[in-house]
């Protein structure tokens, strides 16, 4: 038997390989240097992320490992998001590594880097099993990171919940993937797309099995995305885990879920979209979950008194908005999703960074403890206000442009044919719930600015934390005022998925 090696094209995988090796170095760094330096491991991992970004910018497009590893516009765009969110998460965790995690700093940063490597692999994989492995490499380090405060009951509870839910959802996902494999005879997503269409045309009756696999895959990825009704773990895990990890979960891990969703549904199952594909129309199913996400996220967030829980529900709602772009299925759809994820990264990582800085100083996460913060530490309060307003979608900030593109994508499809006019309802719910969301975001701003008392806490920025907040502010303003360059780059994503503007 003559064995033909596939065309590896390892050059495309260079960023992942580099970051993986760097993570190995970071993880042993503290042990080897006998924990002499407080923040050297952190700076080392920030440097590693920067170098990886540099390598990524020279990578270019192409495919390797046969058809398993694609370096396409989507992969590159989302890899930038993963690196960015890891950068901001690490930058805002210098406080806790100084105070609480004294013995395992290297491991803390190293695990964040490993999780980032997993996300990057996932973004590039064009094959269901390597996609699954990427998703596992993303989540398994996060189980450990969620429980990094070993003496804190809430943190341990968060890790336990996240572990059980994560393992369960992975099982559902791989079960759904096995059905997809059974129906199409391949795990290659592009081949699966063709095979499924042929099978559908030949047999006319793959309904039940396909529906089952669609539901299982939506459930599996829905847990990662915290898309209702699979969102119950989110507030508990965000509340218990270290704040930078909660931020990383809400941005990095979610963006990874979005990539997996786009690859399986928008690409692999794109033939099963639309009313003539009943009962296999995944579009309406996902749209229903998006409506649930927007309503549950935005209404329950109003009642929260803990800022981390509030941001958890807000992140559930934000996933609902992103899903509007996902079901739009036109040349603006995926681009708006990518843009939303990018804008959301700056605003949400920034908001969590402020929460982390405040928590390092005071140990408090109650919204009421932010009262009068604008008088004692005006810079912190102002940046928090900017991030929250961006999350709410107030112009001229990034969140507004992101919501605008997502809604525009859906309206464009809705107007194209009578059978997709239900998308108008989706946009309507999105706009209405965005108004609700302003209430709880503004509530925090009200506490900070319009409280009569002056906050007793004078919070100073450390250098890395200041860098993270500045990065967030620059991103939020730049994407809001001048979104064209990023949007132009993002429009390549839709084009590479076959949505060509007419």
């Amino acid at each position, binding site marked *: 038997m003559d*064995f033909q*090696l596939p065309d590896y094209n390892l050059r495309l995988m260079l960023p992942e390989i580099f970051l993986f090796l760097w993570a*190995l170095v970071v*993880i*042993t760094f503290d042990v080897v240097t006998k924990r002499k330096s407080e923040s050297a491991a952190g700076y080392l991992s920030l440097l590693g992320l920067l170098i990886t970004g540099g390598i990524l910018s020279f990578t270019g497009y192409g495919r390797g490992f046969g058809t398993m590893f694609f370096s396409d516009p989507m992969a590159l765009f989302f890899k930038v998001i993963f690196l960015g969110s890891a950068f901001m998460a690490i930058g805002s965790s210098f406080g806790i590594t100084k105070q609480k995690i004294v013995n395992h700093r290297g491991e803390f940063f190293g695990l964040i880097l490993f999780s980032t490597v997993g996300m990057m692999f996932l973004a590039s994989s064009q094959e269901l099993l390597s996609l699954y492995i990427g998703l596992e490499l993303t989540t398994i380090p996060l189980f450990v990171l969620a429980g990094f405060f070993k003496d804190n009951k809430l943190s341990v509870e968060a890790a336990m919940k996240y572990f059980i839910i994560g393992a369960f959802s992975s099982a559902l996902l791989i079960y759904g993937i096995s059905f997809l494999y059974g129906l199409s005879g391949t795990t290659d997503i592009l081949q699966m797309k063709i095979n499924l269409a042929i099978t559908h045309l030949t047999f006319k*009756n793959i309904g039940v*099995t396909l529906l089952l696999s669609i539901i299982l895959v939506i459930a599996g990825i829905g847990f990662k995305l915290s898309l209702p009704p699979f969102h119950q773990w989110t507030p508990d895990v965000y509340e218990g885990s270290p704040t930078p990890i909660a931020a990383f979960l809400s941005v990095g891990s979610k963006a990874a879920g979005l990539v997996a969703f786009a690859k399986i549904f928008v690409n692999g199952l794109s033939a099963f979209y639309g009313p003539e594909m009943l009962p296999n129309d995944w579009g309406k199913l996902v749209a229903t979950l998006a409506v649930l996400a927007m309503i549950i996220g935005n209404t329950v967030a109003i009642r929260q008194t803990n800022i981390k829980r509030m941001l958890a529900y807000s992140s559930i709602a934000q996933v609902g908005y992103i899903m509007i772009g996902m079901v739009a299925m036109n040349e603006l759809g995926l681009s708006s999703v990518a843009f939303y994820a990018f804008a959301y990264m700056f605003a949400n990582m920034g908001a969590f960074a402020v929460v982390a800085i405040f928590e390092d100083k005071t140990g408090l996460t109650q919204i009421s403890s932010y009262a009068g913060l604008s008088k004692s530490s005006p810079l912190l309060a102002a940046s928090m206000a900017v991030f929250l307003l961006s999350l709410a979608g107030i112009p001229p900030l990034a969140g507004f442009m992101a919501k605008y593109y997502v809604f525009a994508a859906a309206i464009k499809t809705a107007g194209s044919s009578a059978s997709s006019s239900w998308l108008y309802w989706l946009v309507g719910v999105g706009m209405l719930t965005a108004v609700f969301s302003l209430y709880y975001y503004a509530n925090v701003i009200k506490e900070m600015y319009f409280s009569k008392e002056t906050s007793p806490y004078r919070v100073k920025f450390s250098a890395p934390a200041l860098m993270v907040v500045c990065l967030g502010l620059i991103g939020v303003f730049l994407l809001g005022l001048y979104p064209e360059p990023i949007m132009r780059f993002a429009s390549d994503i839709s084009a590479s998925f076959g949505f060509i503007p007419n």
Partner: protein
Amino acid sequence: MKGFYVAPYLSILIFIVIGIGLVLFTFFLARLIRPSHPYPAKTINYECAELPIGDSWIQFNPRFYIFALIFVIFDVEAVFLFPWAVAFGQLGLYALIEMVIFILILFYGLYYAWKQGVLKWV
């Protein structure tokens, strides 16, 4: 062609039903024809095991876990080494380099554990 894709699984379902039914049936049959005469000596372990001493829910040293984990790493390595060795003739130098990288990564893990002082039994 209706139900074409699910049809092969029907035989599995039938097997499951028959499998469960057979066991239940034999138990039922045995119950019908056997004499009923329970006494205490019947319930002890007859040539199966020692009589247990104390409770099995006791605390033991967590170091066992870490040793077991490190063992598992090299256990899994062996699992990967066997198929590699079988296919080595066809794969050539490329596979050798790949396996060296794989083992180096695993040994790096051992090095980390060593430096952490995990291997010392205090």
